[in-house]
């Protein structure tokens, strides 16, 4: 049978594998080599930066990419397993980051002795991550 007419169609991604490792995924803007389609020669050259913040960003980014994939592939058990393990890594990474650099979520402030939530750096200031 041929495809019905006047129905918008786009090929679905077949699998969440292969995938870049987390730092490369963040630098490229996608976890998936098949979706890595840069403009001209604007290609990511290497990891973003080597900071605890960038490390956390990379783990959170992989979680986001897998989550969007899972939204349209809810039956992909392998991808779900992978999302679960990255979510655990991100949670642990976040705990270490907060201890070192300050709260990410306002509720993280409960780990501190005083109301440090308003303290710099806020994300739009280009402060070096990692005070205290």
């Amino acid at each position, binding site marked *: 049978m041929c495809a019905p007419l006047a129905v*918008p169609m786009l090929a679905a991604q077949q699998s969440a594998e292969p995938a870049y490792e987390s730092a490369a995924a963040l630098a490229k803007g996608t976890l998936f080599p098949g979706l890595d*389609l840069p403009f001209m020669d604007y290609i*990511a050259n290497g990891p973003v930066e080597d900071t605890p913040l960038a490390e956390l960003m990379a783990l959170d980014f992989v979680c986001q990419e897998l989550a969007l994939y899972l*939204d349209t592939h809810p039956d992909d058990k392998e991808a779900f397993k992978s999302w679960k393990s990255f979510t655990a890594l991100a949670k642990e990474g976040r705990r270490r980051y907060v201890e070192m650099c300050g709260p990410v979520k*306002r509720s993280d402030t409960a780990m501190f002795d005083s109301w440090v939530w308003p303290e710099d750096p806020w994300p739009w200031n280009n402060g070096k991550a990692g005070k205290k």
Partner: protein
Amino acid sequence: MFVYEKKLQYPVRIKNPDPAMAKYIISQYGGPDGELSASLRYLSQRYSMPYPELKAVLTDIGVEELGHLEIVGTVVHQLTRNMTVEQVEKAGFQDYFVDHTAGVYAQAAAGFPYSAATIQVKGDVIADLSEDMGAEQKARVTYDNILRMCDDPDVIDVMRFLREREVVHFQRFGEAMGIATAKMDQRNVYAVNPAFDKMKK
């Protein structure tokens, strides 16, 4: 409910002020195909979406777009902080400066303020998802055009990241369209709008 995270999705570290660049990058903050349009479009379309997978796609992409709004705002802020009046004049940035100084205001590159007239919420599954796929392409082209004009590697790197996200989101909306139409009448997907008409069992 939304919970704020005190970090960007992607790092922005711009060393040199350049109001000439801020002048056109502001369009991805408050312009027709910018990140405010994107987040408002997806987060608003959710309410009339009948299928769970589509509610999830619109929510998760809409929230990410709010994160992109923050990234673009950060880029404009870092391009305009510490600028001198001489730099303002040399860049032809006076029109913006006179109204907003070094603040970040939601407007298009051509100067008109953000308008929800640039987006649509049609309340129809196929129409809304078609708009979303088109929107991702238009945003992708805007980043292409920004990249053509940018000469600061600190800015290029961020624009390149945001552009790639449009490609990924386009793919997800395309897959969402496939999921939606598979659930609809296979002989005529236009027979009813499942977001409004009661489906016969």
